[in-house]
């Protein structure tokens, strides 16, 4: 029986060093942000001992900056901080709503978008919204820094593209320009405290005539990983994002979905509902874009 251990390195370098050395010595290691997944997992599914490396003490993971071109959300920023940032909420209402869906007030005080992404669940609520917003993962490791688009980050159920010596520093989100709006909707059987049966995030940019010039759609909980659905975005571009265009986008989402039947929903149910969510989120994103 091994031991549980905890470390909270003070610098990015020492964090990478610790991750590298424990990876090479075969020590089981897990990065900790808010811990709202890690602690639950340690008490249920997987109780084995491990080294916990807390990344909340690092200055770099606590950066929250709203620039002209890029919004940067450090990996240790708790949802509650995002929710209370009025500027952020007005710029990326859909992404912030997706973060606001996570858990309860208590959970929000700890849970991070970074943790949600790194947990890499197919149902992680912020991931489709991040994909729709063309967010990029800012990763650091023994080989230095690299950027990976969110849609390429998650590789399977609970797995992602980071090596043992790497961790997430933060997320870069292109700042919305002009008439741009985003939205995220998920379906759960309850009103809160639940896990998405399906989810869809949409970001659209409209020109002065209301014609869509750019659109991205991300979907969740309907495939082993959250997906970018280019066909759904394409179905909106060049349209007024009207009923017909939204129905086409919905059909593209349903076609892209490859869900399973499980205790949370059937294949048929998820395929249908992910389309419904895309349609509804698309309408909200359009209205937000117009209102800008």
């Amino acid at each position, binding site marked *: *029986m091994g031991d549980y251990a905890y470390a909270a390195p003070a610098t990015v370098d020492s964090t990478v060093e610790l991750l590298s050395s424990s990876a090479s010595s075969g020590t089981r290691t897990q990065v900790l942000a808010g811990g709202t997944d890690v602690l639950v997992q340690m008490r*249920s599914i997987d*109780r084995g001992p491990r080294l916990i490396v807390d990344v909340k003490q690092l200055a770099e993971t606590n950066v929250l900056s709203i620039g002209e071109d890029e919004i940067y959300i450090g990996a240790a920023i708790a949802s509650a901080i995002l929710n209370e940032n009025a500027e952020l909420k007005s710029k990326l209402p859909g992404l912030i709503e997706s973060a606001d869906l996570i858990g309860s007030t208590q959970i929000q005080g700890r849970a991070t978008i970074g943790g949600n992404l790194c947990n890499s669940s197919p149902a992680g609520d912020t991931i489709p919204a991040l994909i729709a917003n063309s967010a990029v993962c800012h990763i650091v490791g023994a080989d230095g820094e690299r950027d990976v688009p969110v849609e390429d980050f998650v590789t399977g159920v609970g797995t992602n593209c980071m090596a043992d010596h790497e961790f997430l520093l933060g997320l870069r989100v292109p700042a919305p320009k002009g008439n741009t709006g985003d939205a995220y909707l998920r*379906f759960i*059987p*309850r*009103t*809160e*405290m*639940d*896990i998405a*049966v399906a989810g869809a995030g949409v970001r659209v940019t409209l020109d002065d005539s209301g014609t869509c010039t750019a659109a991205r759609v991300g979907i969740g909980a309907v495939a082993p990983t959250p997906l970018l659905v280019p066909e759904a975005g394409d179905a909106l571009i060049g349209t007024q994002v009207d009923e017909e265009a939204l129905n086409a986008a919905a059909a593209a989402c349903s076609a892209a979905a490859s869900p399973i039947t*499980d*205790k*949370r*929903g*059937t294949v*048929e*149910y998820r395929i*249908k*509902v992910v389309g*419904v969510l895309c349609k509804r989120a698309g309408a909200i994103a359009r209205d937000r874009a117009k209102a800008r």
Partner: protein
Amino acid sequence: MAEAVDLKAIGTRPVRPDGVEKVTGRANFGADLNLPGMLHGKILRSPHAHARIKSIDLSGALAVDGVLAAVSGKDIPGGGDLGDNVLANEKVLYHGHAVAAVAARSAFIAEQALDQIKVEYEVLNPVLSIDDAIADGATLVNESQHTNGDTSQPASNVAAVTKFERGDVEKGFADADVVVEGEYRVPTAHQGYIEPHACTATINEEGKATVWCCTQGQFDVRSMTANCLNKQVSDIRVIPSEIGGGFGGKTTIYLEPVAVKLSEISGRPVKMVMSREEVFRATGPTSATLCRAKVGAKSDGTITAATAWLAYEAGAYPGAPVGPGCMSVLAPYDLENFRIEGRDVLVNKPKVAAYRAPGAPQSMHAMECAIDDLARELDMDPLDLRLKNAADEGTVAPYGPQYPAIGLRACLEAAKVHPNYTTPPAEGQGRGVAVGFWFNIGMQSSAEIRIAENGAVTIMEGSPDIGGSRASMCLMAAETLGIPYENINAHVGDTEATGYCNTTGGSRTTFATGMAVIEACEDIIAQCKERAALTWELDVDQVDWEDGQAVPKPGVNADVKPLSLADIARSAGRTGGPLLGRASLNAQGPGASFSVNWTDVEVDHETGKVDVKAFTGVQDAGRAIHPSYVEGQMQGGAVQGLGWALNEEYIYDADGVMENAGFLDYRVPVTSDMPMIDTQIVEVPNPSHPYGVRGVGETPIVAPLAATSNAVRDALGFRINDLPLSPPRVLAAIDDNE
């Protein structure tokens, strides 16, 4: 019986005596006790839903450093089915069935040591549904189980068949202008109490054990534990903690005999606490059911005949609540012709336990859906149809007794004029109505009233408080003694500290234990009159008790000042010693409680989600001792019923492994799912209780199931027979209907 107008304490809403301790976190619950040298016990559970145990080897666990004891089925020699459920013997009968246990210096070590226990199984086919269990050639859960014990018939998974019948059903249906029928399934549902089962046990060299645990009945824990261990009840003391919910689920035992045995072997106290997952996999939920209902009526709404065919999953051992299901199914109606048939069916799932009005929600779901369809066919208001056929004082209930005064008609009439009913549902919403019922029980209770030197009153009784009963006891004592509520405190005693008391269940506590408290107060009053008579040198029948003090009777010529309870207590040493009142009884005439519920729902046609927009419950409480706690019971029961109607269900895979053994996927409603649960208390006093009390705790869970089904029927324009009305089921039905 005291008239409502005379009542001073009863009907008020004071703060509960246990409130401060609970809201400040000081109250001790099942897992809160820690003793020096205490070990932690953990249970090894079956990975199979049905298998023969070929061998169990505990030696690997015992070899782990820090492990001090290990046990298996043979260490629990008694208790019959109960003992076999506590630790399996020849067969494991459900996934999660307890097979062995260890006690170690830490919970972590105990858990790791479980991996070192070697169990050899011969895996058998699991029986996972009523349909499978009653099919010809079904695998037998128990090879020596014969229906109703009749060994002249082949062994069967149907443990028992119950029948109630009256009149000529065939003629009744022939006389009907309209006949409706349906088949309805209700899934397994768990009570969902927040506090998992927990206990700590210690046993000394004389074989005397003490058990601390969260339970609805310390005396039942004592006798059940004694049975399992072949001990005398007097060898075991059971100390109940505060309880974080029970709803019937804590009327049986799982851990206690194991903890005592592990303590006996190790010589140390042993604590055992279940995880939520263990609670789901191995404790008793209530039955999944398959019910058929058929009702016929004249065109004026008079019901001419009704039949109910009810099959209830018992889990691994006989004992589904199909009896109460049969008793309840037609209880609201005055009928000449009916036939009710119930089946107690074994399946390879956890043994069911009581859950709030055990058995009634399922059977009444079926019948109240059929009655709703009947109202539609007849184009009658659903309340009018029920009023037309309502049971009343003098009606012979389908299960035998003649009803004394009951409040069904009063509830229906109150509903008809309720603004929530007279206002139609909002555009796009559907409304459903249903009636609920629970017969309630009485049984044995004891109470002692102790008066302190300053006149403060302590009630000692034996009913674990799961719904504010201590407050109700204090209110009834305040009323009877004529003193302020604040001068009274109530305590739930352990098995050595108070007289025998049946378990808190069947909505009996405020009724039966309340009656014992009232009688014990009357005993105190009698003693006070004697003490006053002694002090005043009067005859005892020259003394009255009025507003909490002894006074000379009108016309008695005595120049004395009234003596309060405090006055008498202060000088008790000079008049015969401390004041101690007591009563024990076997309470008769619990008095059934009826309810009427209606709910408005909205259905999202694209996702199948049912939103409950409004809910109203009207219920007969006989007399609401503490109206807030009556309303609390009505609201809590409604939420549990709505949860069961909407999303709660056990989901099993093909091997009989529960797939949703946690609150993430076993979906009880969260607060934001629920509308305001509006309540109206009706008071038709129970003639058997001094203040008219009827039990109120169970009835509220009964009607919400059918009310929701009927509301969804109204919203969609077609009926979905089965529960839960979860989004995938509703959307599939909408798609099928198109």
